[in-house]
């Protein structure tokens, strides 16, 4: 892999943002609020441990037979968090995955087309919560 696409997700988010323009009132509303935000400046880590924050590059080769990527905006970051063995880097991996999921949800807005992906994001979030609780020592919120 010759280069790491640090901004892949954010660039795609920007494209999504443009596609949404005018598609619905809700989408237009969020686009209005997000307009002017320079997503390049959001504090996504460039590297985690010794590896880039975005563990895989979205290319035609690795999105095909070897590893099917259904949700390119967040699936790689999520899988990187799942396989992270280094406890020092795990928090950053989980944060990067959570960021990608959150940004994707915002990009999906309230469009009806994203229901299946929203469900997948919800399940991925649940898994990240379990990692935070069991491996990162986050306190339980629903013990009362």
């Amino acid at each position, binding site marked *: 892999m010759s280069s790491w696409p640090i901004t892949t997700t954010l660039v795609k988010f920007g494209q999504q943002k443009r596609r949404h323009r005018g598609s619905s009132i809700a989408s237009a509303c969020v686009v209005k*609020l997000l307009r002017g935000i320079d997503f390049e400046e959001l504090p996504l880590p460039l590297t985690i441990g010794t590896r880039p924050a975005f563990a895989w590059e979205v290319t035609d080769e690795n999105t095909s037979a070897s590893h099917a990527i259904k949700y390119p905006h967040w699936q790689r970051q999520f899988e990187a968090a799942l396989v992270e063995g280094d406890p020092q880097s795990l928090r950053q991996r989980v944060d990067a995955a959570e960021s990608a999921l959150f940004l994707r949800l915002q990009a999906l807005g309230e469009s009806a087309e994203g229901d299946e992906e929203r469900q997948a994001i919800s399940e991925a979030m649940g898994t990240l919560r379990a990692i935070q609780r069991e491996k990162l020592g986050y306190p339980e919120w629903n013990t009362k």
Partner: protein
Amino acid sequence: MPAKRILIVDDNAVVRSLVRRLFESQSDFEISGEAENGRDAIDKAEKLKPDLIILDLVMPVMTGLDAAPLLKQLLPDVLIILFTQQEGSEVERLAQAAGIDAVVSKSQVASELFLKAQVLLASLGRQKDRAKFRNAS
């Protein structure tokens, strides 16, 4: 009217940054600070005295639900919006019991958070005006 001061509490820097930029784009609001967990929020709230706290639920050290009653004790007039990925009646019930004023899901478009903040602050303003009127008459 002075800008309403907001404290953003979330362990995720990207979420904090996005919320900050949403509110900073409006002159009615001013971001007074950010905190990374419930304990940090209490320390910052004591110093910064915000009008509104955007509070995440799941955070290291102290959750939003544990921090909320302590924040209300410290600043009885502060408004708290729980901005969380968790949804459902259980979260709503626990949030209400903790003194939280509103719950907004992170799966909703971010503009919902913004609209909720405006509605809550306007409502608080009306309550204060009514109280002033009652005291004067």
